[in-house]
């Protein structure tokens, strides 16, 4: 067992967990933050993307013990005072989702893109979302949503 201390969505967490606990499992099964989805579970689909110390990573491919001391933001941590994050608003407005399974990862990944590049082109958005797979919308509206968010953020 390992003791990990983390800040998740601004809340201090201090837990004893088995050494092999994966971050996505800690978030979903121990902290009940089920907004982070597990798709492929082998770092290909991107449904599980969260931010660790401000950078997007795939939470299915990181040990929680390894991240002790980090600040983690999940999809649940984006809304402030009941108001959606501009990226969430944009996905809603531009119909950037259908079934919604990939959406948390898309949103978290896209926010990291805008941190690195405030005004990305269509191809830069598509390049960045390389590691996020959507099986419904065909990406068109996802790209439109990211552009919409870029104009608002």
């Amino acid at each position, binding site marked *: 067992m390992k003791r990990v201390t983390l800040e998740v969505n601004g809340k201090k967490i201090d837990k004893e967990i088995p050494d092999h606990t994966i971050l996505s499992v800690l978030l979903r099964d121990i902290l009940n933050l089920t907004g982070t989805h597990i798709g492929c579970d082998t*770092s290909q689909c991107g449904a599980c993307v969260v931010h660790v110390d401000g950078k997007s990573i795939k939470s299915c491919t990181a040990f929680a*013990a390894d991240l002790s001391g980090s600040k983690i933001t999940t999809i649940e941590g984006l809304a402030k005072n009941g108001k959606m994050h501009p990226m969430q608003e944009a996905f809603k407005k531009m119909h950037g989702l259908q079934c919604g399974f990939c959406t948390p990862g898309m949103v978290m990944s896209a926010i990291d893109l805008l941190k690195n590049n405030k005004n990305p082109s269509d191809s830069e958005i598509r390049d960045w979302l390389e590691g996020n797979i959507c099986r419904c919308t065909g990406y068109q509206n996802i790209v439109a949503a990211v552009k919409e968010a870029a104009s608002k953020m």
Partner: protein
Amino acid sequence: MKTFNYHSAKEVKEASKLASSNSAFLAGGMTTIPSMKLGLATYKDLIDIKGIKKLSGIKASGKTIKIGATTKHVEVAKSKEIKKAIPSLAALAEGIGDPQVRNRGTIGGSIANNDPAADYPSACIALNAIIHTNSRKIDAEKFFKGMFETSLKNGEIIEAIEFEIPQKSNYQKLPNPASRYAVVGVYVAKYKRGVNVAVTGAKSCVYNAKDLAGALSKNFSSSAINNVKITSSGMNSDIHASANYRANMVKTFAQKAVDAC
């Protein structure tokens, strides 16, 4: 996943001491963790080396660029020093996986794993790299032994990879559209004393294509290798590309790389 003991080392010596025949060093974990999940690898101990400060960072001198083993792909891709001295190396790092993989994956992890389709091994061969470990210095040509096999011994830790700055260089790859691993990747580097042409993805292990390198050393233009025959024997054949196709791509991408130099 089978359970194991997680250790976080703060010093190289400490990490090396913890190693056993049933352990692995953990850096970004981009291959180690999926392999463990799929049951392809099991360990009793995982020794995290990310907390060892001296293993991370980029140092440029007049002749070489030295990259610490736990330096992440995103750091190599964005490094001003690397972009200036060996722009092809920064571009290679930018083409690995996806942004989340580049935020975690490390150069030392990539070469220690020696995946036959990984990008970095070709950079090591083409750029006359020296692999610095906690016990010795290894020439890249002697480091990569075969499929997923290197000359690293049990408990030996890569500390840094030192690349010789070339006159010109370029890396071109045909990426697998899903994983961005190289179906074929060719790294061309030109030095005063000759040219290197390192090929990844095509065979079971990265290699220096001596016939292409020889022709380009005499005449550094893509037409110089028009008549060099690339045999498909020993080339990988799978659902992504046949051996013949790969043989063809080796020359095509070598020419692309030369033209882009």
